[in-house]
């Protein structure tokens, strides 16, 4: 046998479910009045309080902000919504060259880098080096146009196991190690072409003017 209290409970239960579903499906936070109108004029404040209590401490909570109610992910779980995934990526050949030039010649402007490399350097290449934390903008050169000049960072030294830039092998050492021997032009062209494909942002174009 159902008592009047049971029926009241069920009615309250139905209202609770209705409010829950309405707020869940809503595209925007809703005021108690809007929910009430939506549910044919039922009094929903008590149901909202009960619901909020039910969700307390769960992964999702019902909150009131400026008289509007909505569900949201529990604040302490906010980090779950933005997961960071680290990807290890090898520096492209173009970026390695630019990094080497900055390391040997710092501080240098982009125009100087291009002049040394003999090819234009895409903006993305420097961005990558700055993202890696190895290169920083080190002011501007006091010449017409005031170009930004770049230098390496302490992180650069740490990553490459150098105490200072002086530890980089000099030109004579490079020559002795055979690293200055003319390389096969076609190979270089091919590798540079490879750079272009691997990094869309790192496109190289023949330099227009080198200064």
């Amino acid at each position: 046998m159902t008592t009047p209290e049971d029926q009241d409970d069920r009615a309250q239960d139905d209202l609770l479910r209705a409010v829950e579903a309405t707020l869940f499906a809503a595209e925007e936070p809703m005021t108690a009045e809007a929910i009430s109108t939506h549910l044919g004029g039922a009094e929903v404040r008590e149901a909202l309080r009960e619901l909020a209590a039910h969700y307390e401490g769960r992964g999702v909570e019902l909150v009131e902000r400026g008289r509007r109610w909505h569900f949201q992910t529990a604040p302490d779980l906010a980090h779950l919504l933005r997961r960071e995934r680290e990807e290890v990526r090898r520096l492209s050949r173009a970026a390695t060259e630019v990094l080497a030039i900055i390391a040997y010649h710092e501080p240098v402007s982009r125009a100087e880098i291009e002049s040394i490399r003999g090819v234009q350097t895409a903006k993305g290449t420097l961005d990558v080096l700055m993202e890696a934390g190895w290169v920083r903008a080190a002011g501007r050169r006091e010449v017409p146009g005031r170009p930004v000049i770049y230098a390496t960072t302490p992180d650069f030294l740490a990553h490459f196991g150098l105490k200072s830039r002086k530890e980089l092998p000099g030109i004579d050492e490079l020559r002795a190690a055979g690293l200055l021997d003319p390389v096969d032009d076609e190979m270089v062209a091919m590798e540079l072409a490879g750079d272009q494909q691997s990094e869309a942002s790192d496109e190289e174009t023949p330099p227009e003017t080198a200064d």
Partner: protein
Amino acid sequence: MTVEIIPDAALPLDGEEEWEGPGAVATDDNALYLELEGWEGPLDLLLDLARRQKVDLRRISILALVDQYLSYIERAEALRLELAADYLVMAAWLAYLKSALLLPKDEQEDPSPEELALRLQLRLQRLGAMREAAARLMARDRLGREVFRRGAPEGLRVDRKNRWQCDWFALVQAYGQVKARTAPVVHMVRERAVMTLESALQRVSSMLGVRLDWMELQEFLPPHADVQLRRSALASSFVAALELARLGKAELAQDEIFGPLRLKAIKQ
């Protein structure tokens, strides 16, 4: 009045979901004809006729069904309704089936008409089953209609972060290669065996002087020259031939494109 029966295409794309066969609203024959365009092909019409027998599809009378179908088609033709070809093809096939069913058993072909009737029945059952299944599917609690997903999900984001890798050797090697690539380079051109235009001109005109008939350009080349000299001699001799023709000292002929080029002296 002409009503063309076009299966499928005649139905509005946004037709009612809980669709009822046109026959369901057609209580008398005339009304039925007006609804003919609602059928999707002869099988659809047959299924509707079969349903009118008000028995399980497994127990329908195929002969009665055939008669009903044929009489509809006949009456449609009498009313000059334009019937789509597949309705007529089905009519012809059913007429054949009927006559086969009525023939004495010993004159029957394989497959037997009973077998064919059974297959037709199976087809109707199949279509009927799918039609019911579709209705039951559409009547379910459907996402976006009866049930809803969260209206404003925060969304999950995966931020990619790059960790760049490069080693000491790659760095130093890259610098060495930049230096090597951009170092000033002196180009030396080696001496090569060539035949100059002057010597070719002299050679060709003197050889032309002693011959009266046509000679191919190839014959003017030095016979024992190496490949490189021969190539140079061919180019120079060709230009020389053109020059001699321009001066009116030689005649040039070529029978086809890329064919041998022939020369002949013009006697003054």
